[in-house]
């Protein structure tokens, strides 16, 4: 307090002297801000604040628009406007003045102007275009501060289209003598790279120069770019590993100037960033990882001082060590380090320790075991965040034996959690776990899902009820079990309905009504009339939403069988027959008809057939006649939604055609409104079809949202969850073969734990909890050191669980025999053995020697997703398996690879053998199958040839190969799919690929499922990448045709590219180069201009117009297909760069 008084006193003289200051006139405006702030703090209600600010805004508005306001006054006004905007009041009238201030003010005023612009506007704001000139001017200024300001505003936001205008100037700044300018220029270029990667492709060399800059600040700025680029494509930057390692070594070794120390730690942030980059580079790559072992070791050793920031470095180090190809020594140290984190009394470190454990536990479940007591303690931690992280960790070590305990813990948390996001996330996880182990615990499953539905309420992700219903309807292998499950569901729902159903969330009610409609007949003694009455009670409840009501009506329709139920049905249908809600009315009408007409009932009711998939004509071919009639009568042809959207956008932009169609718009809105009808879901799930997929597709009709989702939304989140799931899949041991022995082991571990440490009562409770939580971990520890779970394509897998395969092959989640590998020590031992005696002593190390060919296939398996399955002989014994250990060794043994390549190409179908084909690349392999693929360029199509090589000694049956891609259309060319491959034989599948949606690279994902000789189903996933260039074919057109086409195409992009040579023939040389590399058709060269045409399979033309201009090639691409010009531009640029 005295401090404040003192300050006030010291300030008084200056306050008094103010009147005599020459700047007194200006003071009034400054103190206006003071007045404003003072006014706001005096206020007590939000309403008053609003009034005050509105008044303030009006006065600011008056002053800014008055011509007498000087720039200096404007500056003050701008700060006041900024203040109002910060409080959430719009001051859009001042935006243009901010730009003006940045344009015309002196350096100081400019600074305020730029600041205001960067706070007011966003990248797509149209006023920003007015700023481009100012930025241009300031970038050329001799005043360093102005240059800095321009670079700062550019990196905050800049319109994407205008980047080419300032790019050369920013590039130039990379050579600026001042390091601060160079550094800011690097970051500005990084921003450009983020928003328009194609535009800065040509300056990658300059990034390298920035990396080698003599100033460490510039170097560390360039690391931002590299970590981004390496994240996108690690393969392309492996050569830089040595440089990064050298830099890190120098930093760690204290070679940087003292300025860079932070609390006597040398450049900690730089170290963190380098460690992140190294972990990206070393992931799944042994040779690269080997380069960094030493420096990682040194980092671990050096970072021993006890300051927060050293923990930050240690944490990154540990993560890096567990991400790259493992080395036992380092792993040991890292594990110790994690222990330090977990055991730390500091809560932040404990939290990070748990995070690290979560990350690591998929490779080394033993580590969780070591810290079980700490984990138990964290479960009861007062900090919810820590608690949640602990649950996340438990989620990853869930197996069939501890699932009930873990789910119970999660539900406990859910009941107290107030945070929506956490709840949604956790509900998803519980549902996932519950669905993974439903068979053993029928009742538990239903009860858990009941809790999930009632706690999760209406905010949970919509796919949870969908997949639950799907699970119920598809069932599992045993019909009997399915029945039990459904019966139990019906019983428990009847109880719920008899209670107070009004309190249940809508989603839950929908699930209940669907289940009642489908399965309540299974319970023989349950009268349909009783169920109908219960459902009718729901309809009368006020809180029931109309969507739920229509679900209920649907269920009633299914149950309407005659007898006493009819009267209930009639009553209900009369009430809702006049409902204002059209969907409800429709359902009610249906119900009414059904209840009145017994013939109709007999015809429609398909009770017994409902379990079999219905034939649905998804192409709606029965409507063809109707369509052609309508077309003949002059109706507009159907256009897919995205096309409509585009046309709409174009019309908005500039309507050149006087009579635009208005029909498509109304159609699209109608289809959107339709999406919520329950029929969609019940039909598709009744079909056992892909209800989740379908709802997804439905969602994609709303174009814009979809795009947003893909970047930040559930997709990204899903990837993570898939990874988690994969992890659990590796840990779980649902195989009946193992369970008995395992339980034995688990039991022994249970009995061991208490005997080791005699403990007091509460402790014992915890011990007990620990033993139930960590059961199954000790014995199995299915460590697959390198087998880090790639986020695989879950969607695809789900699809594979369709009606055809649900009983057999593809069902990984429920019944794939994932069998534990020996403990990590064994694997390490095994690896060491291999390292030292790679070729000589394999048979000695392996108790069941395998043919050598397998060894090689194991070696080549580094690219495809690895599977964790083993043959039966391995299951019985617990000897270290050579092949498993081997499968993860990345040592490239090229010769057999090449050999295989040669012999595989001889299997190419004769009609394809003469054509050019890509290199045969391995897709995936395991102990019995080895898949490779190549693509063959035909004139009219691109054929993907998949070779299935059976490398085991026995035949493989029931092979099912499925391929899919987001951007490509995949169709099988074979008449009869491959079903079995004899021992050491090769089968060939051909697929024709065409482009659905252009992209720079395409990915085809696939799954192969088969039965091993013993009869156990297996499945392996793989993916194959193709560039756009494989799909490009020349488009033979004449110059006239070209002219008309050019005008017809709407999507275009322009960019300057490098010429391949100088001199008069430079254009021809460059175009020939492009023609050679990309298979374009050179239409004509006229003077300094050239026109080129090509098409992307199938029938997606793209035209190119080039002009030589000041030593560069100005390229203009046009196509009717969106995104195609951009993607093609990328490849043109690449082609010319490689030259």
């Amino acid at each position, binding site marked *: 307090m005295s401090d404040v008084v003192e300050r006030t006193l010291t*300030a008084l003289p200056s306050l008094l002297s103010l009147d005599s200051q*020459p700047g*007194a006139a200006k003071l009034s405006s400054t103190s206006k801000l*003071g007045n404003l702030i003072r006014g706001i703090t005096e206020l007590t209600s939000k309403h008053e604040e609003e009034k005050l600010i509105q008044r303030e805004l009006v006065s600011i508005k008056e002053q800014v628009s008055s011509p007498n306001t000087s720039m200096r006054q404007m500056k003050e006004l701008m700060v006041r406007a900024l203040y109002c905007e910060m409080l959430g009041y719009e001051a859009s009238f001042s935006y243009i003045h901010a730009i003006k201030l940045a344009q015309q003010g002196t350096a100081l005023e400019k600074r305020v102007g730029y600041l205001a612009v960067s706070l007011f506007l966003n990248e797509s704001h149209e006023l920003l275009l007015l700023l481009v000139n100012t930025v241009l001017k300031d970038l050329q200024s001799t005043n360093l501060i102005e240059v800095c300001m321009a670079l700062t505003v550019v990196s905050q936001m800049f319109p994407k289209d205008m980047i080419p205008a300032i790019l050369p100037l920013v590039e130039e700044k990379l050579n600026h003598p001042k390091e601060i300018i160079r550094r800011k220029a690097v970051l500005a270029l990084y921003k450009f790279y983020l928003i328009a990667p194609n535009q800065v492709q040509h300056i990658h060399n300059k990034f390298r120069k920035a990396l080698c800059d003599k100033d460490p600040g510039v170097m560390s700025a360039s690391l931002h770019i590299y970590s981004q680029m390496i994240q996108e494509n690690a393969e392309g930057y492996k050569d830089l590993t040595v440089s990064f390692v050298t830099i890190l070594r120098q930093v760690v070794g204290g070679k940087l100037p003292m*300025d860079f120390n932070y609390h006597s730690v040398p450049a900690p942030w730089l170290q963190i960033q380098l460690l992140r980059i190294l972990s990206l580079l070393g992931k799944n790559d042994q040779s690269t990882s080997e380069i960094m072992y030493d420096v990682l070791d040194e980092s671990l050793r050096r970072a021993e001082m006890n300051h927060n*920031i050293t923990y*930050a470095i240690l944490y990154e180090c540990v993560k890096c060590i567990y991400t790259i190809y493992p080395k036992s020594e380092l792993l040991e140290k890292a594990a110790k380090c994690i222990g330090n984190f977990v055991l730390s009394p500091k809560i932040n470190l404990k939290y990070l320790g748990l995070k690290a454990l979560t990350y690591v536990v998929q490779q080394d479940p033993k580590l969780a075991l070591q810290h079980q007591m700490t984990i138990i303690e964290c479960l009861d931690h007062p*900090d919810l*965040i820590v608690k949640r992280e602990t649950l996340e960790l438990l989620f990853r070590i869930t197996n069939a034996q501890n699932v009930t305990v873990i789910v119970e813990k999660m539900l406990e948390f859910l009941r107290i959690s107030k945070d929506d996001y956490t709840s949604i996330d956790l509900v998803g996880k519980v549902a996932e776990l519950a669905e993974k182990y439903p068979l053993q615990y029928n009742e538990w499953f239903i009860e858990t899902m009941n809790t999930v539905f009632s706690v999760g309420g209406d905010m949970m992700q919509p796919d949870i009820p969908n997949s639950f219903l799907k699970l119920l309807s598809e069932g599992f292998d045993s019909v009997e079990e399915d029945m039990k499950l459904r019966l139990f569901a019906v019983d428990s729902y009847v109880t719920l309905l008899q209670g107070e159903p009004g309190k249940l969330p809508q989603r839950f009610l929908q699930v209940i009504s669907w289940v009642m409609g489908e399965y309540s007949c299974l319970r023989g003694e349950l009268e349909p009339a009783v169920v109908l009455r219960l459902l009718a009670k729901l309809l009368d409840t006020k809180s029931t939403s109309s969507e739920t009501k229509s679900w209920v009506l649907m269920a009633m329709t299914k149950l309407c069988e005659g007898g006493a139920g009819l009267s209930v049905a009639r009553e209900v249908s009369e009430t809702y027959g006049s409902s204002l809600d059209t969907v409800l009315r429709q359902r009610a009408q249906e119900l009414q008809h059904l209840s009145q007409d017994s013939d109709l009932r007999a015809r429609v009711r398909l009770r017994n057939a409902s379990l079999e998939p219905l034939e649905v004509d998804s192409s709606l071919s029965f409507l063809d006649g109707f369509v052609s009639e309508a077309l003949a009568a002059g109706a507009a042809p159907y256009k897919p939604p995205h096309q409509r959207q585009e046309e709409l956008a174009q019309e908005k932009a500039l309507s050149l055609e006087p009579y635009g169609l208005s029909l498509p718009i109304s159609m699209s809105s109608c289809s959107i409104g339709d999406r919520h009808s329950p029929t969609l879901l019940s039909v598709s799930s009744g079909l056992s079809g892909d209800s989740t997929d379908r709802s997804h597709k439905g969602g994609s009709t709303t174009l814009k949202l979809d795009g947003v989702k893909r970047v930040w939304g559930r997709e*990204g989140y899903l990837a993570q969850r898939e990874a988690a799931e994969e992890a659990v899949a590796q840990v779980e041991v649902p195989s009946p073969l193992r369970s008995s022995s395992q339980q034995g082991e688990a039991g022994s571990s249970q009995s061991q734990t208490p005997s080791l440490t005699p403990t007091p009562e509460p402790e014992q409770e915890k011990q007990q909890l620990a033993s139930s939580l960590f059961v199954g971990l000790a014995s199995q520890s299915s460590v697959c050191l390198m087998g880090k779970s790639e986020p695989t394509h879950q969607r695809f897998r789900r699809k594979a669980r369709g009606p055809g395969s649900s009983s057999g092959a593809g069902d990984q989640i429920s019944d794939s025999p994932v069998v534990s590998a020996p403990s990590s020590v064994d694997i390490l031992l095994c690896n060491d053995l291999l390292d030292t005696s790679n070729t000589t002593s394999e048979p000695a190390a392996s108790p069941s020697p395998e043919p050598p060919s397998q060894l090689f296939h194991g070696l080549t398996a580094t690219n495809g997703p690895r599977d964790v399955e083993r043959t039966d002989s391995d299951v019985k014994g617990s000897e270290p398996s050579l092949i498993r250990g081997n499968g993860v060794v990345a040592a490239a043994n090229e010769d057999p690879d090449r050999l295989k390549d040669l012999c595989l190409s001889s299997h190419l179908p004769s009609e394809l053998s003469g054509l050019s084909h890509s290199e045969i690349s391995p897709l995936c392999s395991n102990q019995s199958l080895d898949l490779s693929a190549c693509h063959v360029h035909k004139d009219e199509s691109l054929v993907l040839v998949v070779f299935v090589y059976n490398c085991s000694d026995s035949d493989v049956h029931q092979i099912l190969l499925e391929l899919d891609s987001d951007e490509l259309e995949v169709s099988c060319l074979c008449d009869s799919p491959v079903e079995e491959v004899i021992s050491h034989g090769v089968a060939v599948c051909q697929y024709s690929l065409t482009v659905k949606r252009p992209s720079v690279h395409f990915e085809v994902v696939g799954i192969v499922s088969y039965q091993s000789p013993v009869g156990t189903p297996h499945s392996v996933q793989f993916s194959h990448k193709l560039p756009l260039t494989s799909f490009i074919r020349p488009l033979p057109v004449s110059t006239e045709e070209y002219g008309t086409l050019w005008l017809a195409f709407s999507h275009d992009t322009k960019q300057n590219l490098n010429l391949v040579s100088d001199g008069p023939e430079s254009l021809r040389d460059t175009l020939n180069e492009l023609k050679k590399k990309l298979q374009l058709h050179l239409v004509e060269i006229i003077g300094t201009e050239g026109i080129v045409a090509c098409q992307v399979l199938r029938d997606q033309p793209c035209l190119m117009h080039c002009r030589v201009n000041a030593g560069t090639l100005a390229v203009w691409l046009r196509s009717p297909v969106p995104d195609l010009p951009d993607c093609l531009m990328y490849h043109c640029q690449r082609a010319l760069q490689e030259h």
Partner: protein
Amino acid sequence: MIKAILIFNNHGKPRMIRFYQYFPEDMQQQIIRETFHLVSKRDDNVCNFLEGGSLIGGSDYKLIYRHYATLYFVFCVDSSESELGILDLIQVFVETLDKCFENVCELDLIFHMDKVHYILQEVVMGGMVLETNMNEIVGQVELQNRMEKSEGGLSAAPARAVSAVKNMNLPEMPRDINIKVPSLSPF
């Protein structure tokens, strides 16, 4: 990447807001409110990280915050940032503010919102950490301030006036407002 930097006081009044990813105005205010709601109910002895919010970028989004006397400094970042690294960056930022304003307090931030922005611009640029060395940051800011002085003695006056206003008895203003910059050891 850093998505946003928010500074607000114990009552949730925003003191400095900087977004590095575009959000519409109402969304920004909602983010501020929700962040305050999340952060303010946490004790001082729990961890400084909050994960998962539905607002910015879904699950790839965490809040890292520090609480100094009357102010919360919150950094919203994605997974590419190191938690502990950002935590120390906040410390660096606050220490820099302390150095530039000489014993910084909440009022400094209110009356010199623009200056706080200028200082921040030297620490974080476009969502990327630009400089972590306090001396360098202060150096850059001072360079700009010199330009301010050279541009006219007049402009020095309002600054003095502001400091006078700042030290006057404002009603309802928090009294004990000096941000205590702790000596950086414990969390």
